């Protein structure tokens, strides 16, 4: 079974802090993704990566950056957290043409 592990289930951060969300997958998947999920808005793609060192902007990249130094690890960085970044963050991985496999999410609260 594919396992996608997000390092934190819950995080509480202050406005202006730099926040790191970590994601690791154990199935040698090429593709990795970061989404946020908000009530009424569904899943929105923030950033994705199809290879090590490669990254591309999704639909809502503003205020975020990512890092993919190793194939299995994809990090999401909030450079200066703001209250409107309070959300559920979901990491996913896939092989081309296969379903996305999601982690259990990180519930981030920015106060």
């Amino acid at each position, binding site marked *: 079974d594919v396992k996608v592990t997000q390092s934190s289930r819950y995080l509480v951060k202050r406005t202006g802090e730099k926040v790191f969300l970590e994601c690791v997958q154990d199935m040698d998947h090429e*593709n990795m993704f970061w989404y946020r999920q908000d009530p009424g808005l569904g899943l929105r793609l923030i950033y994705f990566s199809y290879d090590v060192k490669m990254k591309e902007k999704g639909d809502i990249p503003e205020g975020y950056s990512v890092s993919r130094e190793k194939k299995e690890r994809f990090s999401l960085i909030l450079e200066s957290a703001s209250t409107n970044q309070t959300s559920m963050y979901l990491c996913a991985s896939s092989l081309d043409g296969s379903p996305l496999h999601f982690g259990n999410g990180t519930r981030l609260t920015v106060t």
Partner: protein
Amino acid sequence: EDQVTQSPEALRLQEGESSSLNCSYTVSGLRGLFWYRQDPGKGPEFLFTLYSAGEEKEKERLKATLTKKESFLHITAPKPEDSATYLCAVQAIGSRDDKIIFGKGTRLHILP
């Protein structure tokens, strides 16, 4: 424009009361349609992939079907543990995984 619409937004059923969830989609050509289950506070869990009209997949009390315009997730004799949000997603032919489009989900609540 490619899009996915799920209905109803929310559904409450008595235990044992069978029903169906709908996923209507508009896509230039379908590469695959995916169903996920999401429990509160957790990530979506993959259930099924359907590729062509007429295809059906089953898992326990769930059966997914596909036509050229929509997919149904049929729930037979549901139990309280089937309560969750069910998400549908589609991918168009020739598109990569970042172009997978998700619906907003149907929240299903099964009353004991």
